[in-house]
């Protein structure tokens, strides 16, 4: 089912932005880490729904499997054993995957028109048929999410099950989550839900419980409830204040048009020089 320009908020390598005439509900996924048991059902459902199967790997002395995100693994659980309070062990388990940034760095970095699209509902989706495999999205992403497939050299990541959401269903991971650590709905509702969870956590002694919805990328459509909101890095190095790298912003920001302009100016300068100053000719008969 085609989502036309009216449903698209941003499109990679497209200088004229789509009209985004429609205003559908902004969706969001909320990951409540305090409810997550790290069962990996979301990983299984993701593989199953999206018809992905990663390699059967090995155990390297930890629970994390597959070891990392890949073209076949769009979400993975990251396990961290920490003692925030002396003598009180906590096993923090974070579901890693695309955060669906409001200001998506991948989309900004992508040179191929339409390879990365942000729908008006907030989902950032890769369209592999337009992907050229340059890997620029990797540089744009502040969360280290996209992966280039070894098979077809195209970039892959969580689609937030855009095919399910398009027909009014929740994403596969959300549906399967046994404990309700994953919930899905309008972004507004998710923030409200998170507030309730945070109040509950505070009552249970997590004074710094907080919502992770980083403003450095304009907020995200995948948010976390963190027991230790002041230390997101406890959760397998979740960045504390993520933003698109200034290098990428520079490169894909002012630089692009300025440099293009520079090239154009150089050509024009030559042309005008030629027609004003004229060619440099030497008299053949010139002798000593």
């Amino acid at each position: 089912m085609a989502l036309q320009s009216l449903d698209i908020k941003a499109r990679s390598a497209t200088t004229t932005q789509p009209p985004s005439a429609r205003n559908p509900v902004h969706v969001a996924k909320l990951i409540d880490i305090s409810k997550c048991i790290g069962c990996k059902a979301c990983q299984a459902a993701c593989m199953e729904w999206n018809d992905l199967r990663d390699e059967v790997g090995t155990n390297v002395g930890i629970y994390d499997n597959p070891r990392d995100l890949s073209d076949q693994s769009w979400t993975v659980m990251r396990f961290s054993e920490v003692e925030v309070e002396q003598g009180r062990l906590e096993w923090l388990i974070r579901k890693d995957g695309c955060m669906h940034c409001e200001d998506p760095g991948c989309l900004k970095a992508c040179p191929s028109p339409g390879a990365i699209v942000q729908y008006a509902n907030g989902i950032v989706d890769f369209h592999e048929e337009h992907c050229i495999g340059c890997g620029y999205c990797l540089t744009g992403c502040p969360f280290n999410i996209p992966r280039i497939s070894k098979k077809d050299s195209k970039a892959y990541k969580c689609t937030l099950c855009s095919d399910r959401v398009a027909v009014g269903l929740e994403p596969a991971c959300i549906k399967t989550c046994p404990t309700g650590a994953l919930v899905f709905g309008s972004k507004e509702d998710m923030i409200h839900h998170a507030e309730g969870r945070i109040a509950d956590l505070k009552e249970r002694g997590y004074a710094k419980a907080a919502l992770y919805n980083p403003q450095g990328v304009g907020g995200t459509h995948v948010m976390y409830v963190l027991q230790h909101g002041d230390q997101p890095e406890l959760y397998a190095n979740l960045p504390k204040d993520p933003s698109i790298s200034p290098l990428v912003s520079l490169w894909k920001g002012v630089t692009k048009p300025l440099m293009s302009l520079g090239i154009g100016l150089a050509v024009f300068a030559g042309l005008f020089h030629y027609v004003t100053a004229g060619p440099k000719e030497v008299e053949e008969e010139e002798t000593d």
Partner: protein
Amino acid sequence: MTNHWVDIKNTDLVLIMGGNAAEAHPCGFKWVTEAKAHRKARLIVVDPRFTRSAAVSDYYAPIRAGSDIAFLGGVINYLLSHDRIHHEYVKNYTDFSFLVKDEFAFNDGIYSGYNPEKRSYDKSTWGYQIGKDGYVVTDPTLQNPRCVYQLMKAHYSRYTPDMVSSICGTPKDAFLKVCELIAETSAANKTMTILYALGWTQHSQGSQMIRTGAMVQLLLGNIGVAGGGMNALRGHSNIQGLTDLGLLSNLLPGYMTLPGDAEQDYKTYVEKRASKPLRPGQMSYWQNYNKFFVSNMKAWWGDAATAQNNWCYDWLPKLDKGYDLLQVFENMNQGKVNGYICQGFNPLASAPCKVKVSGSLAKLKFLVIVDPLATETSEFWQNHGEYNDVDPAKIQTEVFRLPSTCFAEEDGSLVNSGRWLQWHWKAAEPPGDAKGDQEIMAGIFLKIRDLYKKDGGAFPDPILNLTWKHKQPDAPSPEELAKEFSGKALGDVTDPKDKTQVLVKAGDQLNGFPELRDDGSTSCGCWIFAGSWSEKGNLMARRDNSDPFGIGQTLNWAYAWPANRRVLYNRASCDPAGKPYDPSRMLIAWNAEAGKWGGSDIPDFKPDSPPEDGMNPFIMNPEGVARFFAIDKMAEGPFPEHYEPMESPLAVNPMHPKNDKAKSNPAARVFKDDWSSFGTPDRFPYVGTTYRLTEHFHYWTKHVRINAILQPEQFVEIGEELAKEKGIKAGDHVRVKSKRGFIVAVAVVTKRVRTLDVAGKKVHTVGVPIHWGFMGVAKNGYITNTLTPFVGDANTQTPEFKAFLVNIEKV
């Protein structure tokens, strides 16, 4: 489960001990997170490992594997000595006031009547004082030193916090914190649920661990109430159903039992089981035993079962002893078993001490495997390198491997842990030439029957007369079978109060077990399932999930046994006057106007018995009340006592340091040759414990690509301290050895497995997940039951997988 999955949301406190619900039952565990989120419930996890359940708990306390009775005994002591019990409940609904025989005694870990040679008890002293009226003598003042309350108080006074801490390795403050949280639920409007599983079952004293848990719940008044109960989280999708149907050595359907050799007389057989009430006015529902039994025999042998031949009583095999799995493998090892059929069961992987099981299987003449998957057992004769190093040429067993269907390819019902019989529908044809289990069983049986018909042979009557009224005899349909176990009227069933009233017409399906008769006019293959397929249709297939009371009862979803009741003993949720202890979670209440009990559940009670009549809630017991004192029901004693695992890291039982007889369970059965297979702490100093991981299901999902990806390779878990001592780093390959063999696996070094201080020494634990083997799409691995000891619980003979001794070294 006394309660059911959704009911967990009604609790105030969840105790997960002897189980790991978050990992093994994630979707059921959802209701724990719901209780936390919506009732501000707290979750306590007591476990040797910091599990994924612990990861979302409010409080975690470590414990040494196998010491749970000490812990719970300590909780009982705390509750009794701090007087944090539900007084009205225990006084009225339990045996607190019952007087126990004067001869009953307990001396340094051993109860009266012990025979050390036989390793069993003469239980004649383990009983109540019976008055002249035939009823138990009681002392409502609870002052008599022989009353259950006083005996129990004295028994558990030895389980002091210091003793608990010393035996369990649980820090004393952690233990006391758990006690405090638990004690809060002694309030009438507070409740705790206990969720346990194989972490309690798989010990040589597993049944008593569960019993101790139940005693804690009774003291707090938490049995029979919404959000309470003792909830066994069964491991497989239908072991509840198969147990209900009596597929265990000594059982008949509906927890009726097969006779022993001595029970030659049918009448005595029934009378022994149809107990008369032990207190006035009590129901003692088993008095109806004969109705269940006769109806069962009518279902099996139809017209051949008559009053004259005692309903074919003699056609049933009689037991000279139990033939549980361990006993059968022992016999097999001795060459006494020739044939074995494994229907969806993989004993090479699931039974303890692989070397013994493998050797036993090799002594069989024939082995029949019926399974959807290529199991290890089906290839026990095949050389699979280091993982199964056998010589096929030396194994003379004929093996048949018959492909069966899986869930997706069949219709039928399964019973979940909450006792719900749920129907499911076929979605696809089986692969290749695979056939359904019913077709396969019929295929084998009909051939045998034909042979007996043709050639005769040993006692052919039960075979030739077995009811087989199937429209397609070689493929009995699930619908026919379901109707058969649900039961039907063979003649008109009339109202006993008014014989002219026909309740069920001849030929119709029955509505429930109250309609069963002992005159041969009803047929019912499993009395507790009676009514699951009535004239109203297949009630197991019901899909109305409405929940009018908002406490998750959904009475019109599927069918729960017994009688579609969702919470067992629910009469106990009301005070003696019939008022709910907590109206906001009302299960049932006495409606004086209507003259009956009613509410959000089906009453587990005589529906029209008014509170004044004094009938008590535990209607299956002749006493009418719940028992703290188990009388003669348990093998090792009426009160649970802490015994060490058969393989213990300690030299003595700290409770009985001077009595070697009381070191480990004195009533646990050990086969003669197996004593030498137990290891000692000098060579095997660490506590080994096996368990499941959430990514896998038993030995099945190693055949499943998605799950193989999620957890690909065999590993063991050790604490940082042991790792340091042994120079093991995460990711190293290690060899874990027990006296019975070894496995090699990757080491996961973790803070989650702690070193414990037990009786003045450091005890390390080695955690061994079970899911790998030499068949499957996951990385091949060793069968973990290579390590485990060949000994079971004294009552159930469930093997001791949770606590044994190992050593570990870097490979």
